[in-house]
């Protein structure tokens, strides 16, 4: 079985005639350390699929395993623990907490860890430095640019070093140059061994991934390999 294995995932909302099928029988196999892009038009079900891959959204039917763990067979608390250890989320709208400093936002996932504040701060500062925000730890989110906010969101996602990063339209609210910098950052993380699954409707940024799948009306249309395994895509993202 591959590292991430989704088998015939279906997600329906509503009942009876009002039933809407957001994801319709999608199967996926993603290897450890892969960089997968999911593309599709608005309403194609890509965000719903991503939330199911993140253990946030129980499928109506189908099975989903990560590293052999049947994620949706876990209890609510076990699934929360699974997310804490295994998944880092990067949201489209950053979703930083406006009342916390950048360092505090970055160390948010550590709030439930038993460690000293000093240690947590050191880890968060290191994560901020990795995304190029060294020296801005004490600022509030409204004191930095959109691109920097996205970087903080990435720092928050990687602060506890999860093996998987799920990014939903990480460049959606950014200009081209800033978007490219964020993509380069994700590519770097992938190069360091993190599995990255990214939803995007940008063809350019999708090509930063090694593999690309397309969705339409909740169904998987096809797949293309952008780059052979082991290749680096940092330069191509820089070009983007």
């Amino acid at each position, binding site marked *: 079985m591959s590292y991430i294995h989704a088998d015939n995932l279906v997600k329906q909302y509503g009942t009876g005639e009002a039933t809407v099928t957001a994801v319709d029988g999608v199967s996926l196999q993603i290897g450890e350390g892969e960089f997968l892009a999911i593309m599709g038009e608005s309403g194609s079900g890509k965000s719903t699929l991503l939330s199911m891959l993140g253990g946030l959204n129980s499928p109506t039917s189908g099975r989903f395993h990560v590293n052999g763990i049947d994620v949706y067979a876990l209890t609510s608390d076990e699934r929360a623990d699974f*997310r804490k250890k295994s998944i880092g989320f990067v*949201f489209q709208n950053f979703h930083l907490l406006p009342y916390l400093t950048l360092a505090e936002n970055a160390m948010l996932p550590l709030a*439930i860890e038993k460690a000293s*504040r000093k240690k947590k701060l050191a880890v*968060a500062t290191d994560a901020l430095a990795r995304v190029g925000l060294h020296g801005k730890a004490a600022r509030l989110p409204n004191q930095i640019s959109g691109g920097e906010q996205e970087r903080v969101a990435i720092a928050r996602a990687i602060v506890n070093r999860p093996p998987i990063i799920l990014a939903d339209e990480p460049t959606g609210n950014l200009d081209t140059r800033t978007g490219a910098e964020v993509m380069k950052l994700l590519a770097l993380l992938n190069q360091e061994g993190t599995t990255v699954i990214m939803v995007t409707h940008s063809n350019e940024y999708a090509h930063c991934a090694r593999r690309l799948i397309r969705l339409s009306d909740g169904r998987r249309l096809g797949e293309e390999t952008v780059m052979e395994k082991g290749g680096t895509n940092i330069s191509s993202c820089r070009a983007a």
Partner: protein
Amino acid sequence: MTLKTIAISNLRRRKARALFVLAGLLIGVSTVVGLISLVKEMKNDINHKLEMYGANILIVPKTENLSLTYGGMSLGGVSFDMKEIRQEELRKITSIKNAANVAAVGPMVLGPVTVGGHRVLMAGVDFTAAQILRPWWVPKGKLPAEEENAVVLGANASRVTGLKAGDKAKINGRELVVTAVLESTGSQDDELVFAPLRTVQSLLGKQGRISMAEVAALCTGCPIPEMVKQISEVLPSANVMAIQQVVKGRMETIGHFENFSYGISALVLFVGCLMVFVTMMGSVRERTVEIGIFRAMGFRKSHVVRIVLLEAGIVGALAGAGGYLAGIGATKALLPLFTEGHGPGGLSFEPMMAGAAIAASIILGIAASLYPALTASRLDPNEALRAM
């Protein structure tokens, strides 16, 4: 960064909501503290006034005869075969458990004498204790000292005998000076001739013996029935009685005040809790996305509950402290309106009440926030992050 940091930071950010919750609890706590303090001070005031009523425990010799007097009127010529108590036995009262609550003990010896050709009842009293036991006495003249050969006449006794302050009266062959005449009291005291205890004991040949004793024991927290029992135990030859009308009246008045204050307190606290509940529910709805982020990052439901309850607890603690101070302040301001002359001088910082106010406020804040906290924890993280 801990859950406490998140809770405190959120309170700082949402100051208006935090202040609203604070106000709800603060008003509730200050009302309760204010009412309890007010009732306590009013009880003190009432007790102070009741003490002015004088004795409230009577000690009389045990007898098998029933009294044939009512309202000061004697019905039938029943011989007055009185037994007596040994005066030294009264000292045992100082050994009872509640001895500290005894304000005064007034021994009294009674006996008929002839003054100016009139038969009157003479009472030997301790005039120092009498001033506590009979604060309503208004003497025209000076009350005598313990060993003095002097008498004080009740208003009617003075009128009937024609004696006034400064006159001399011959009683049982002994000449005594009238040092004072009491203004009319409307009680049996008007009919009596009072003299120092030892003087009367000597005149009546009852040295070391007394006819009865009065005890003043009205004060905050005095358990009168318990004290009656304790005195009965140390004076088995005496019949000890509480003046029930005063005691019951006092307890009833205090009871009414307490019931009123508890009722109002419960109502205000309920409204305060409702304010906390509504505000916290609103806060949870406002923070749907934030809660979704927490859950996405691996926070368990219990972590979300803890954040909400921590916020409520912190606000509750502040409201408890503020409510205590506000309640005491309000009592100080209002007390003169509810009492006469007994000002707020007795009000002081009470660590127990302050601690109880803070603890109660925290508990109420948490209790009122429990449902909003559970609602927050039950939020579907995917629904919460719909914008994701």
